[in-house]
């Protein structure tokens, strides 16, 4: 295990050291202490590393992650795991807005609550939130799945494409073109598996499923009020 202290080593040096692992992996286990809300910690990783971040992370922690397993032992700021491609990112505390924005793959687990726009424009990532999510979550979600074990704020899934949303608690309101859908056996199986992989102890039968009504996929005069 290699340990870096962000109060004494610069962010640049730490990220550079982590990036150098992508061509040749010499150390799999990394720990970053003294995070203290610094931005852009461990972004752009491209190797199966295990990175533990002690303390709170600022914006874009683990941004564009590939392959690595990153754990934030604290809260995460805006855009945690934004545009992640693969690997896993786990936030032990709460996450600010735009968690997992535009992410194409991998698994993002937020054990606490997530702020507004969680999973905005997501493109294939799986996001599991232990608590609540804020308004406009999954806005324009294109692919992947968002699981909310608490409640969802206003305009959930607005202008949704093909992302699947599962919510256990209440939904303040659904956004344009987002509707509740039947939870069939295949969805229960998928959700069971996803909750297991996320290490979250919930009963899939307690969730409701939401998805796109696909009414806004092509311009129609009748939908003018939604544009």
């Amino acid at each position, binding site marked *: 295990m290699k340990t870096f202290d962000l109060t004494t080593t610069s962010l640049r040096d730490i990220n*550079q050291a982590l990036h150098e692992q992508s061509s040749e992996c010499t150390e799999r286990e990394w720990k970053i202490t003294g995070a203290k809300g610094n931005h852009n910690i461990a972004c752009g990783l491209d190797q199966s590393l295990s990175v533990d971040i002690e303390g709170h992370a600022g*914006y*874009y922690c683990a941004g*564009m992650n590939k392959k690595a397993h990153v754990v934030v032992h604290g809260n995460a700021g805006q855009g945690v795991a934004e545009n992640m491609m693969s690997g896993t990112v786990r936030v032990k505390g709460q996450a600010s807005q*735009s968690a997992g924005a535009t992410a194409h793959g991998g698994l993002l687990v937020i054990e606490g609550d997530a702020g507004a*726009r969680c999973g905005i424009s997501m493109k294939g990532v799986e996001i599991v939130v232990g608590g609540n999510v804020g308004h406009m979550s999954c806005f324009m979600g*294109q*692919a992947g799945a968002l699981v909310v074990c608490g409640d969802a704020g206003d305009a959930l899934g607005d202008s949704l494409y093909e992302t699947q949303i599962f919510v256990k608690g209440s939904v303040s309101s659904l956004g344009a073109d987002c509707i509740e859908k039947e939870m069939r056996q295949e969805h229960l199986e998928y959700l069971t598996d996803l909750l297991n992989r996320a290490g979250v102890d919930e009963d899939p039968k307690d969730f409701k499923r939401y998805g796109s009504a696909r009414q806004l996929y*092509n311009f129609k005069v009748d939908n003018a009020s939604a544009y």
Partner: protein
Amino acid sequence: MSDSNDLNVKTGLRESATFDAATMTEIRRAAETGIYDIRGFGAKRKVPHFDDLLFLGASMSRYPLEGYREKCNTQVTLGTRFAKKPIVIETPVTIAGMSFGALSANAKEALGRGASAVGTSTTTGDGGMTPEERGQSTKLVYQYLPSRYGMNPDDLRKADAIEVVLGQGAKPGGGGMLLGQKITDRVAKMRTLPMGVDQRSACRHPDWTGPDDLAIKIQELREITDWQVPIYIKVGATRTYYDVKLAVKAGADVIVVDGMQGGTAATQEVFIEHVGIPTMAAIPQAVQALQEMGMHRKVQLIVSGGIRNGADVAKAMALGADAVAIGTAALIALGCNHPKWDEEFKKIGSAAGYYDDYHEGKDPAGISTQDPELSKRLDPVEAGHRLANYLRVLTMEAQTLARACGKNDLRNLEPEDLVALNVEAAAMARVPLAGTSWIPSQSY
């Protein structure tokens, strides 16, 4: 058109200047369809432009350079502020971002070939980077757009520069649009969308909002690419003075300002014609902002929107730009709107020279289409060659004007070399009205 006009004049019929034929047609179209008009191309109305400026060639008080014999440098380095590897372009004319999706793969390849042949850069667009484009472009700028279609760290690291797009001159404040006809299997896969949807991309970035956030976003992009490549910020020209100041503060290496005449692949007509300020008016605002911050020439300024010839290039540079970018003109050089397809343009209700329905994907010239049969009409090698020729002409024309003004580098051109033909242009470009010393915005 003119025949019937002549007849109308003879019989005393008079067209309304307010409700002219085009206006009436649009009212009827709106009444029939109930939806706004969407089209490509740039603003078609006349706005104050570089044609309203003239150069003061050297004579007694200034000393001209000999054409051909005396050097006039055209090379420009972009991204000297923070990047370890700035981009060196041999001509200050770059190819603007145009998406694969809006354009065919062949057209994108041709743009790469043409640009590479003359040592300049080309740019991806809202839809990701294609291997054809990367392969044929020696200097490729990768756009980072609100939609983040196809965005991935591998392509990011393959780029020679990254352009964070906040807006476009054709539609400042608006997002992208690509209608179902053009969302073929390949385009859909690259954008992670169902085939055939009318795709509306977001107008704001999903994970940052103001300039303070943008500074952190830029730091993220730099960290991911290990501070190697320059980061550009592209804005549509509106409140350019403030936008440029904020872009510098956010940490840009290069700022791209796109004026209202700038082309687009698809947006609402009302947007194209009614939002933003002319390119010529934006440049002095941008330059003033840079100068006040002591950043002129340190943060490079690229200007686009209606650049057509070497005079436009030279005028933009005289006003203080470090380089220009072209979209529409590059497409025309490839063969867009070519008269040889006139019959086919007529079949789809248009005419050569007027075609702007890029969003419909039926371009007879095979450029703004995803139809495999139409795309085949554009030979990327031949079209790339035409673009390279055109870029050489732009460069030589700009050099001709610079030499005439006694400048051995295009970037030595200055506002003092220019005068304006009318009061509007004098006020916007902040150069004197020809034959006077009067700059309307600076004295009364």
